[in-house]
């Protein structure tokens, strides 16, 4: 049993002090984060770094206004001073609100089978990278450069608010990434592979470093043979796992309650209506075991949960944080997330999945006369107000007469969220997840997305071939 980050009487005093200056709601978010990361480059360990970050974010809400201050000083005096700054920012009258006494803490200790990163010798972390590097280099002589990175973080958080909520969480995340450059007659190409999970060093029981290295290498080597991507509107088959990011961009962001309440989402006013093909059921599930975006509680202290956002094509819910849920008089959905104690929470995705359908993935490909088979995507971007989104393909092939044929070079795919959702013509009976970092208003949080093999009738492929 580890000691709490801050004793509850200090938290109570801080909340009381914040509200005594005026406000409807006050919150303390405390964080202590230890991290380590290493980079193996040019065939040797190049950088081994340790990090420590701890502090508290104080939030006072009055009406529609949020005052926020943060401090690295976790003493009673430091917290009271931050509470004053946050309350001063929210400013004004109503000093009548009282703090509800803090409940017994809802604690979420680390599970026993997690191998804590701080118990693993640094030497073993370095060895992992060497193994990934060696396997990648051994794949082919055309592999000219390998960068292998390792990162782990243990993040203890504690949340207390004036509604009496008191909860803590202890999160461990581990990730490895390998980037390979291969050089051929056509120039240089890159391949990337980066598995990560909400777990400790046992990640590498599932993802052997050699395999991570080889997958990145094969991707780069494949691209050396690639033809320029076609240009124009074509059917796109997204391999299981690869296309999750499409749904993350095409509709996920537009279903975050802040965009809805600001009337800056194409999905505003669509609740209960058909927004997608009936084949599409979309869930956001922060409780999914040990995925990259998994949480026990969100960064406002509310338990992570499984939220069905679109069911058989019908819009059923948005994603909520505390501030937006209070405004609408409903419960938050466990989607209040922040990058660190220095940031304000907002509605964010966790693990966002399209559920399995009934089609055989091979049949889906066989049904396409000429199109694109996307195996790995490189991230994307959306304007929630218009629904227009893009994502890059980093491993993809042409489909010609129902067969997957030649690899194509990197290109952008572009579409409009509501349009693409309606053009999902087939959903496979397979499933895989994808690990990524999601950026929103300058804050980056770990997320995963996942889906079965999916056919989109038509999207614009931004290649250079005529």
């Amino acid at each position, binding site marked *: 049993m580890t000691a709490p980050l801050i004793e509850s009487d200090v938290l109570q005093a801080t909340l009381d002090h914040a509200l005594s200056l005026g406000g409807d709601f006050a919150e303390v978010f405390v964080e202590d984060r230890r991290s380590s990361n290493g980079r193996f480059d040019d065939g040797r360990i190049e950088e081994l770094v*340790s990090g420590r*970050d*701890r502090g508290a974010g104080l939030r006072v809400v009055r009406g529609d206004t949020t005052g926020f201050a943060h401090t690295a000083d976790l003493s009673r005096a430091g917290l009271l001073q931050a509470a004053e700054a946050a309350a001063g*920012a*929210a400013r004004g009258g109503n000093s009548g609100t009282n703090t509800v006494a803090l409940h017994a803490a809802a604690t979420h200790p680390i599970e026993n089978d997690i191998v804590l990163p701080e118990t693993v010798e640094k030497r073993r972390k370095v060895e992992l990278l060497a193994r990934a590097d060696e396997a990648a280099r051994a794949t082919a002589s055309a592999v000219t450069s390998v960068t292998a990175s390792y990162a782990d973080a243990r993040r203890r958080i504690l949340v207390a608010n004036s509604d009496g909520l008191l909860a803590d969480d202890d999160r461990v995340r581990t990730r490895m990434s390998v980037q390979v450059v291969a050089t051929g007659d056509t120039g240089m190409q890159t391949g990337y592979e980066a598995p990560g999970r909400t777990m400790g060093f046992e990640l590498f029981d599932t993802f052997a470093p050699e395999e991570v290295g080889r997958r990145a290498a094969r991707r780069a080597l494949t691209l050396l043979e690639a033809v320029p991507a076609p240009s124009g509107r074509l059917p796109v088959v997204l391999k299981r796992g690869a296309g999750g990011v499409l749904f993350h961009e095409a509709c996920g962001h537009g279903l975050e309650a802040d965009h809805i309440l600001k009337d800056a989402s194409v999905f505003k006013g669509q609740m209960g209506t058909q927004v997608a093909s009936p084949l599409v059921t979309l869930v956001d599930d922060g409780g999914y075991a040990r995925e990259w975006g998994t949480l026990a509680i969100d960064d406002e202290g509310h338990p992570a949960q499984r939220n069905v956002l679109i069911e058989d094509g019908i819009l059923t819910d948005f994603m909520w944080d505390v501030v937006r849920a209070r405004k609408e008089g409903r419960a938050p959905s466990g989607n209040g997330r922040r990058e660190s104690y220095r940031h304000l929470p907002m509605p964010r995705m966790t693990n966002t999945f399209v559920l399995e359908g009934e089609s055989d993935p091979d049949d889906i490909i066989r049904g396409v006369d000429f199109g694109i088979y996307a195996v790995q995507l490189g991230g994307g971007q959306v304007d929630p*107000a218009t629904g227009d989104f893009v994502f890059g393909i980093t491993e993809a092939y042409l489909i010609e007469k129902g067969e997957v044929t030649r690899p194509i070079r990197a290109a952008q795919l*572009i579409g409009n969220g509501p349009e693409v959702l309606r053009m999902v013509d087939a959903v496979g009976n397979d499933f895989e997840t994808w690990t990524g970092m999601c950026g929103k208003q300058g804050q980056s949080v770990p997320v995963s997305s996942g889906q079965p093999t999916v056919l989109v009738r038509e999207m614009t492929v931004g290649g250079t071939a005529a």
Partner: protein
Amino acid sequence: MSSPELLDIARSVAATAREGEQVEAYVVRTRETDVEVFDGAVESLTTASVEGIGIRVIAGQRQGLAWAGSLAPDVIDESLKEARDNAGFGEPDEWYGLASPAEVDGFEAPALDLWREELASVPTEEKVRIALELERATKAADPRIRNVESASYGDALSESALANSLGVESNTRRTTCSASAVALADDGSGTQSGYGFVAGRTLSDLDLDSIPRDAAIRACRLLGAKPVPGRRIAVILDPLVTRSVLGILSTAFNGESMLKGRSLFAGRSGEKVAAPFVQLIDDPTDARALGASQYDGDGIPTRRNALIVDGVMQGFLHNVYTGRRSGEGTTASATRGLGSTPGVGVRALRLEPGPRTPEAIMSRAGEALYVQSVSGLHSGTNPISGDFSVGADGLMVRDGVFAEPVREITIASTLQRMLLDITDIGSDLTFLPGAVAGMTVLIGEMTMSGA
């Protein structure tokens, strides 16, 4: 607190170096305010002071690093211990080493005044007023603006100090402030968004009136935008788009990328890589650039570095490490965050402006696509292979004027091709937040994919 205290902290850490060991401490402190308003009220107001330290230890030609988001003495001690421990797991590299006085000799730090004391005393009420007024004015800028998605003001007072056990020291401080608004326009044909923003060192630098105007123009002129059929076409890049493209391109001049075989331009120094009138310069000694700085991340005085002269590639940017390993010497281009060893990067990159205004460029372009904004720059562009494919929206240009708006299209080429295909560079050099300035640029031909 002021910088001298930061320098004292850095010196005290550097002074702990043992026999045969080099120690460097990089210490930062930023005070910042951020105001977001929505619907006539303050949505959030953040005030904060952020500080931290990055410690680098080199012993036996092995290097280790540790960082912390706190300057508490116990945390600094822990970080120093971790950095030493991490060095023990490193591999020896003869080129490791901190900046030495010999590398500083002969270079005078440019006289740059990047600090505006008055920004520190602007009352919070004034910052709130600016953001509220921005939202009101944006809403009123055009009857087709149905909503303002966000309006904000932010500023930061940043100080840093570096000291190493070889006696190299630096001390920098700067103020920055910015304001922005995002307008949502709708005339019944669907929503379009557009933003306006300004940045400077203090309030009087900010042309606040330009924000509502830019946001409204950029949103409204896209109303009714549709995909157009794909083809090869001349492309005019908006200054903000040019900024983004140059930012991606800059990694090709990175000495670290070159040494590791990951630069497009490896082995191409002295060769023609761009149209003959193209001059590309990184000049952190130019106080107009918001990325200007007297010292780099190794603590070395900055200087002007020409990357492309008359279309010919000049060389690579280096920090102390890559400068030694390549034999080319540092160009004072070390970039620095707390959590990593110094990298290499640009601070104030720009093209030399050409003689023609954006209007003159449009009138000479024939039929062209004016790209107002791009998306997916990091997912669709590969600075190692040079493949370039991004989502775009903007307007068609015919007979020198804007014609129909377009959206949901992509433009594609390669970075290598685009540099050679530059046909015109505008006179409208615009200094922007970040490390790259923008201006209007005409690219002779790219592939547009659309309907």
